[in-house]
């Protein structure tokens, strides 16, 4: 159990590093969602199922959704700007 716990913590450290390492914002959001899911697994493993449930819905669903919407907003703005510039 101790080995499984330390392996899980290492996995979280690596995936946190990979979130920073990802350069494309859309892919980065998906990586962040996966990282949130891993955190939820960690909370569940260390016997905090309530926190794990919150982490699943907030870290893996709500936060990436809000970031995705913000990215969509920015991309849409860029598109309208470039199309206006072309005319």
């Amino acid at each position, binding site marked *: 159990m101790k080995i499984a*716990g330390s392996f899980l913590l290492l996995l979280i450290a690596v995936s946190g590093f990979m979130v920073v390492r990802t350069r494309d914002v859309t892919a980065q959001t998906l990586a962040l969602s996966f990282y949130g899911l891993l955190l939820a697994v960690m909370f569940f493993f260390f016997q905090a199922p309530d926190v794990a449930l919150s982490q699943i819905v907030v870290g893996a669903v709500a936060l990436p959704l809000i970031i995705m919407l913000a990215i969509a*907003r920015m991309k849409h703005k860029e598109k309208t700007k470039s199309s206006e510039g072309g005319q």
Partner: protein
Amino acid sequence: MNVKWRLGMFFIAGAFFLFFYLIAAKNLPPWGHYRGPYGDVISSLSVYQRHATDVVNAIDYDYRGFDTLGEEFILFTSIIGVMLLLRDPKLKGGAAESDEGLSKTVKVSAGGLFGITLIFGLYVCTHGQLTPGGGFQGGVIVATAFMLVYIAENLKRFKAIASHPLMEVLEALGAALYALVGVSALAVGLPFLTNWIPLGTTGDVLSSGTIAVISASVGLEVATGFILLSYTYLQDIVSGREE
């Protein structure tokens, strides 16, 4: 800084990390071993004092209910803040009706998942005092079910649900109900937020007194709040407002 330097920095930082990681992994407490006094005390007390089998909810909505009241109003005011900042989008029209990229498979499976997600969310909301979960977690799951409506149908259908005046009324009602439960204790002559409703049988859905009521009201507030939040964002994207 060139690539060689950066790699060197990475290996130095990595060596430091590995060193401290190995120390931490070695001194990790054995699995399931709890090293504080309060957890054991409250675990043994909460079933007798509050008839709630999920201790986390008994703490959240009863033992430290006043803090949770403050936290709920933080969420309430931040949602109001977002709606205020992104209010009144001047509809330019013709902007991205952003459901063009979704395939029929995605739409049909989202439609099929709606009912299951909604029921699961309501289950988590109402069984917070018995099993892990409670108002906050269940509320966000319910809100996710309504976002599936947007995926399965389109923004127009989602708008019909989310921009309904009832949504805002329900959100305010959810927030108010928590405070009202607290005030109701004053009305019967007890301190604010005292658990005065009969506790019922341990293990029943309608047990644990005010904990179940507060959990349901938090669920209502969080679910409607998150629906309003996502609708406000979506509306802002589609309207394509220029600053």
